[in-house]
């Protein structure tokens, strides 16, 4: 039998050596724990502190940079925020009494080890965060990054990740309404699997993760607790009880969790019913750090005291120690605070859904989190010290020595296509390159219809769902990041990510409201990476201020690197917007109206730093990213929203990677309609077609609205140019003086690439 380390025991052998270093704690961190407790920690306490003070849970390397959010959030921006940074997910007021919550999280490393389960449990985790706000999860999105498309390991990782995201999300009944698939060799040994979830609730139904009300019960419900993800903590067990076979074998436990989407679906419905019957005082999901996190966070947000009888936790594995139970990352579990008189009703709802639920403790006024195991105290700590008072590092920051060289390596020197034939070939080559090719192979594995409220999904600029079936109020969301731009200039590159997500939302007719992010970077111990990180946070925070939309939350993922080579810095930015009637949405495909003029909004300059053209044709990364002008982006968004409101736009498509050529091809193929384009004689056709200047959108305007729309643009100072007409009779995209592309040829080039690589 294993011997349990208790608080009493800690008093008797104060100097027992403890494996804190193997648990990832530094000498001074361990000393600090001893100082907080006034004694050595028990094994269970050590397990709790070590997971909660890890980079992943405590944000110890990034926290000091959060001041940028604070300094850049004005009261005006704050006004629409019902919950912000510090909660499970940010919540915004979208009007008519509706609140919407959204958040992105990373599940990068597990998805490399076991692509299917890693990605699946990534979706499961973010959905529980949304659920914990009291919202019904309504849609998911999945920003993904992989190594080179033709690398053999990408053939292992990508299909598994896609099947995992689909397998979990489809089974949960959440439409997938967007995401990204980007290939770059820097992600080879380190794919990025970020998952976003959006949920909604009535404003008054907002839940917070708070253990308030002395005497209220703590109920753990959902799946049983097993040995999932306790990898690190098993050090403890094997140290002390190495003669116990059961326990010794745990050293080799995989840190991969297996998801059970069915259990999560039932858990969602169960929670919705619990919320509707007002049986929940506080609620928290169990994710990273499992019960350690849930109990310490709930306790520190409430009256500050909690007593947990850990032996009550229903287990799936034999002989688990308290430290293991506290650290388990078993999926599909939630923890609720319930008034004693509501416990019976709570249990009845759980029974109806066949959800296992157990009272494991209660809220106290002691100010301490006390955890007992068969009557003996194994944890007795001030909860805030676990949840919020972890270490804070000021990591060294240094602009990389080669940054100047990188920026000086101007793509202007690269040979450019000039003849019509060269331009034609360039266009076909680009639209069939993995990053620009159709992502249908991926997205057709995701259910976009379930729940019947999906108004726009892939391949639209942003996903859009209806929230209120009566009024048609809905939200749109997009996630974006071009890691190459960020590498060239992290400040500007991150603002470009923000600008693009913002523009994508506006392009569908929605008003951008709020921002979330998932900051994927290399090692924080590398001063160059920390410089990228700081620039990115600053760029995003200041950019949000300029646009007047707040950052509501996010997630940081460090140590994304293979050996000492970091990934392209990838701060994924998610923007959420609101539209008061989804029937006004602007679709992407042209040809919806009988006669349409094509107008390009914004200005095009010669900008190829970090461009897809430089990447695909020359394998080149250098120079400066496109310039960003957020005031212009704001004006552009206002024009698009006004155009949607007054029915002046029949289609719109944002220009980004691949430039105008890419946007034209997609708008034509999606709308299954041809068009005739006349380029500006005064500008190099190559620049017009392939430059990646920001702040541009292609719009289709019904002929009857053309004058009204262009006058509005002129009056408000937004540059625009008539570039052609939609031709419903034609099955080709004709770019005058360059080439005529039959839509069939374009379709083959655009749609053939991913199936050829992954089928």
């Amino acid at each position, binding site marked *: 039998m294993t011997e349990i380390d208790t608080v009493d025991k800690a008093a008797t052998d104060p100097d027992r050596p403890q494996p804190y270093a193997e648990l990832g704690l530094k000498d001074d961190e361990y000393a600090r724990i001893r100082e907080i407790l006034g004694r050595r920690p028990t094994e269970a306490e050590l397990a709790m502190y070590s997971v909660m003070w890890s980079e992943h849970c405590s944000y110890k390397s990034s926290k000091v940079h959060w001041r940028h959010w604070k300094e850049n959030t004005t009261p005006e921006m704050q006004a629409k925020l019902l919950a912000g940074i510090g909660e499970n997910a940010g919540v915004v007021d979208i009007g008519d009494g509706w609140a919407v919550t959204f958040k992105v999280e990373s599940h990068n490393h597990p998805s490399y080890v076991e692509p299917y389960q890693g990605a699946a449990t990534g979706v499961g985790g973010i959905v529980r965060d949304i659920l914990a706000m009291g919202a019904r999860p309504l849609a998911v999105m999945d920003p993904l990054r992989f190594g080179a498309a033709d690398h053999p390991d990408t053939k292992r990782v990508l299909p598994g990740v896609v*099947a995992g995201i*689909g397998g979990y999300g489809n*089974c949960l*009944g959440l439409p997938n309404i967007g995401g990204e698939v980007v290939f770059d060799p820097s992600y080879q040994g380190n794919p990025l699997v970020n998952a976003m979830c959006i949920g909604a609730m009535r404003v008054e139904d907002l839940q917070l993760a708070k253990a308030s009300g002395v005497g209220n019960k703590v109920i753990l419900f959902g799946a049983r607790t097993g040995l999932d993800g306790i990898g690190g903590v098993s050090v403890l067990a094997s140290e002390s009880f190495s003669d116990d076979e059961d326990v010794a074998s745990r050293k080799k436990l995989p840190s991969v969790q297996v998801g059970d*989407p069915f259990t999560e679906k*039932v858990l969602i419905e169960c929670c919705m019913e619990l919320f509707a019957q007002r049986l929940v005082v506080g609620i928290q999901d169990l994710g990273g750090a499992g019960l350690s996190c849930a109990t310490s966070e709930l306790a520190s947000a409430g009256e500050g005291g909690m007593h947990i009888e850990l032996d009550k936790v229903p287990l799936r594995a034999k002989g688990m120690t308290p430290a293991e139970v506290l650290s388990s990352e078993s999926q599909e579990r939630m923890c609720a605070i319930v008034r004693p008189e509501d416990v019976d009703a709570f249990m009845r709802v759980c029974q109806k859904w066949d959800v296992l639920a157990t009272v494991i403790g209660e809220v106290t006024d002691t100010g301490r989190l006390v955890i007992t195991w068969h009557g003996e105290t194994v944890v007795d700590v001030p909860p805030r010290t676990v949840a919020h008072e972890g270490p804070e590092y000021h990591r060294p920051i240094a602009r990389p020595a080669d940054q100047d060289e990188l920026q000086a390596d101007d793509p202007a020197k690269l040979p450019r296509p000039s003849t019509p034939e060269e331009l034609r070939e360039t266009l076909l080559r680009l639209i069939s390159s993995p990053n620009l090719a159709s992502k249908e192979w991926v997205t057709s594995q995701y259910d976009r*219809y379930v729940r*019947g409220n999906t108004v726009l999904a892939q391949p639209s600029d942003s996903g859009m769902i209806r929230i209120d079936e009566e009024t048609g109020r809905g939200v749109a969301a997009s996630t974006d990041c071009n890691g190459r731009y960020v590498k060239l200039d992290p400040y500007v590159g991150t603002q470009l990510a923000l600008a693009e997500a913002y523009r994508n939302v506006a392009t569908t007719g929605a008003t951008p409201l709020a921002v979330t992010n998932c900051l994927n970077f290399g090692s924080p111990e590398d001063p160059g990476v920390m410089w990228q990180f700081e620039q990115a946070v600053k760029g995003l925070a200041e950019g949000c201020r300029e646009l007047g939309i707040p950052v509501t939350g996010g997630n940081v993922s460090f140590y994304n690197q293979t050996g000492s080579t970091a990934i392209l810095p990838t701060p994924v930015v998610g923007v959420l917007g609101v539209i008061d009637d989804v029937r006004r949405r602007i679709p992407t495909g042209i040809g919806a109206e009988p006669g349409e003029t094509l107008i390009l909004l914004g200005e095009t300059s010669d900008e190829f730093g970090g461009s897809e053209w430089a990447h695909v044709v020359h394998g080149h990364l250098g120079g400066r990213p496109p310039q960003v002008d957020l005031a212009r982006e704001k004006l552009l968004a206002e024009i698009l929203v006004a155009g949607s409101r007054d029915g002046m736009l029949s289609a719109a498509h944002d220009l980004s990677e691949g430039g105008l050529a890419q946007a034209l091809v997609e708008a034509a193929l999606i709308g299954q309609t041809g068009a005739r384009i006349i380029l500006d004689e005064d500008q190099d056709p190559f620049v017009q077609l392939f430059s990646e200047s920001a702040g541009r959108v292609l719009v289709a305007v019904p002929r009857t609205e053309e004058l009204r729309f262009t006058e509005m643009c002129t009056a408000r100072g937004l540059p625009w140019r008539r570039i052609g007409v939609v031709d419903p009779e034609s099955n080709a995209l004709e770019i005058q003086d360059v080439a005529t592309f039959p839509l069939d040829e374009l379709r083959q080039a655009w749609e053939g690439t991913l199936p050829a690589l992954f089928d």
Partner: protein
Amino acid sequence: MKIGVITFPGTLDDVDAARAARAVEAEAVPLWHADDDLRGVDAVVVPGGFSYGDYLRAGAIARFAPIMQSVVDAARRGMPVLGICNGFQILCEAGLLPGVMLRNVGLHFVCKDQWLRVENTETAWTTRFEPGAEILIPIKNIDGRYTASAETVRELEAEGRVVFRYVEGNPNGSINDIAGICSPDGRVVGLMPHPEHAIDALTGPSDDGLGVFYSVLDATRSLVTA
């Protein structure tokens, strides 16, 4: 007119089926898997989703639910029953319809807008369609490949019990491009694509699916007057 919509643990498209029922001005009545009470409904929809996670085999566990016994009894008395996607799988496992759905030949989940031909316009769920009509309806599943013994397929074809057939490409390798079939009396229909997701061009590829729900209004009305 009351259309019952069953919810099993793991059912997903029950909200959509209920919305479709309301769209044709029927009353949508929620039915719970653990009850055996059909609550006086005139027709039943067994909706899509992943009942019990589809863990053993799609529909294999759900068919043992108490509500299914009542559905089977009612169907034998002529009540119109529609199984969509997972619902179709459940009806097959429950023996109301022959055959079974296997993993798609491409081995992937497939979500796309699919053209179907309505091959039989005399079932309880298809009278509002013109014979041979082609309709655009979403399909979304991973186990959608209809399979049955050669004899059963011959029988289905000979008796005109193939109700919907995939056109412009077979998304899952289904035998004879079969997308949906019916019982000998045409009262029980099962199909893999989702008519309840095609009731409004705002949220679906078309509103072609409405015809399915309008048809059953006629079917139950004629039952009442008969």
